[in-house]
């Protein structure tokens, strides 16, 4: 099953490699991993999307908790949560028919065109991973020039929060 694990970790140079190293050393999957500093500059927040049986996920959370740099951990998937991922996609946009079609599609997906040249569009889109996949699928492969995805991030609904 797919799980989204959010972590508060010490904002130190080795923390990321300890966490990434744990996943490779023990053969766990990483679907995506995002990391950035929080409002407290000594802490980073990391979101890891992983898959595994309940037993594997239990081991993953225990092993992560064991790392000295991990301050706090939460498995988002255990409760209600909101998940988003951001994507930039650069597509070939030649000729007025094609440009209009891409513009229409982007409106349907509530994507924004953020850069335009004579031959290309650069589009920004936020949503669940499925939504980003769906958008990519609407555009013919040969017209996709470049895709940049941020990886998922998540936040719990309601009062519950991952803070110190």
């Amino acid at each position: 099953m797919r799980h989204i694990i959010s972590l508060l970790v010490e904002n130190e140079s080795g923390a990321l490699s300890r966490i990434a190293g744990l996943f490779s050393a023990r053969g766990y999957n990483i679907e995506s991993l995002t990391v950035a500093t929080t409002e407290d500059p000594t802490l980073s927040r990391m979101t890891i999307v992983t898959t595994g049986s309940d037993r594997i996920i239990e081991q993953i959370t225990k092993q992560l908790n064991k790392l000295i740099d991990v301050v706090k951990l939460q498995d988002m998937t255990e409760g209600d949560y909101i998940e988003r991922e951001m994507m930039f996609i650069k597509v070939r946009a030649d000729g007025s028919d094609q440009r209009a079609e891409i513009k229409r599609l982007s409106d349907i997906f509530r994507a924004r065109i953020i850069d335009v040249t004579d031959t290309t569009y650069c589009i920004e889109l936020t949503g669940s991973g499925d939504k980003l996949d769906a958008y990519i699928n609407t555009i013919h492969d040969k017209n996709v020039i470049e895709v940049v995805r941020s990886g998922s991030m998540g936040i719990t609904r309601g009062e519950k929060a991952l803070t110190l």
Partner: protein
Amino acid sequence: MELSGSEIIVQFLKDEGVEYVFGYPGGAVLHIYDAIHNQEDVKHILVRHEQGATHAADGYSRATGKPGVVLVTSGPGATNAITGIATAHMDSIPLIVLSGQVPSGMIGSDAFQEVDAIGCTRPCVKHNFLVKDINDLAETLKKAFYVATTGRPGPVLVDIPKDITAPQIKIPYKYPKSVKMRSYNPTVKGHPRQVKKAVDLLLSAKRPMIYSGGGVILGEASNELREVVHKLGYPITQTLMGLGAFPGTDKQNVGMLGMHGTYEANMGMHECDVLFAVGARFDDRITGDTSKFCPQAKIIHIDIDPSSISKNINVDIPIVGETKQILSDMAKLIDEHKERPNQKALQEWWKRIHSWQAQDCLAFDRDSKHIKPQSVIETLYQVTKGEAFVTSDVGQHQMFAAQFYLFDEPRRWINSGGLGTMGFGLPSAMGVKLAYPEADVACVTGEGSIQMCIQELSTCLQYDLPVKVVNLNNRYLGMVRQWQEFFYEKRYSHSYMDALPDFVKLAESYGHVGIRVEDPADLHDAMVEAFAMKDRVVFLDVITDQTENVYPMIQAGAAHNSMEISPEHQKRQNSINPEGELA
């Protein structure tokens, strides 16, 4: 007090109560060595290879319970130390490894003797630190000791760039008595409700088995374990790492379990209805086939490390916390409990266990004209009255030592259980001898293992460490040969140790005494002679039977009740009558 980084390191070690540092100098640690030279409180032991330094510190720690301290230089100094760091990591031994690093400004430039020590050691340390600022040095060292020695212990490496230790830069120093780390708070106290449930289950058992591991020794919980086991009257088996936590000579002890465990321990595991695991981690050498592990048992598991629980085997009642505290709580609860152990069922169970014991699974041919390795350990046990510290290397000799030397006290049996590191025995014996200069310290080894760290014979001479090396010399990598005999149709690929040195002459050239024994009749006297030379290192080169195998043996991935047994055991099993008694 204004001190340089080097002086801070030495002063800190002194304030922390460190007696010995095991190390080897080099460019990046020259400032530190200069500071060591100017004092006598912290004694430095110069090894002959950094692997020896880590094993010696490790042996010192296993024997004393105190953390071992290592000092190595950058680059090859750090990489040579890694085998010993990984050894300590697998067996949860607290080590502090201080490694020199190239100056901060040169990190990442592929400087001479530069290696990313933090990156190289990351997978095999509990934690590691790079010191970036001299003002953080003392606190970082304190954190290293704190992390290494608390919770589930383990090695911690502190990488120190050369500029941090420069003699010109001095800062005020005060010993940090304690440190707080928001991200590190090991659980110490077991959950009372879980402890209660565990006692309820234990007292309802009809065929109980207690299985204890190295966690009892690391947690200094031997007395508490003994109390609980004696109160219950249940059989107990130990892992390779747990030997000595419960007396080897106690009637309730059924010996070691697992791949080369006793017949009675493994059969008991297979048939028990309640398994009580204390400070053990269900390693694959213990469990064999996990799907057939203790098929009828409800399982209780005490461990300080939550990630050990239900990692390999699902347990019914997990208790996270310190073994000492939890066992002592359990002892009280057992006294207060309205239920008593089921004596009728227990009697039946012991009867069954005794019938397994009567088969004498460790029997070997005592009339052989060759020296049997088992008899060497038996002789060692007799001559040292079972009171020696015994270190070992890895292979058949290690298993024979574990089976035939009955340890009555914890911290006497010192071996690399998890990583299985050949070369561990001699340097770890040095660490033990430093800690207990008056005690008999024997290194049980083989002609393969001893050659992996034999250079430390030189360190033994320099620091006057009269350990006894008992070399079971069968001219084979015995355990490899055994597996090749069983599983590769006797194709002995590269397991024959050809071109062996003359170990007697070799010992002599290192300034020690060498004795060779080839005749079973000479064994006892030679052993007595070796241990009578209190102030000399004696290398006892015992020429043993090349064909002997370690029995019983559970093949990797098989169930506990399917053991290969020795020919002598087979003879006795064949003579059992239908009532289950020996004819």
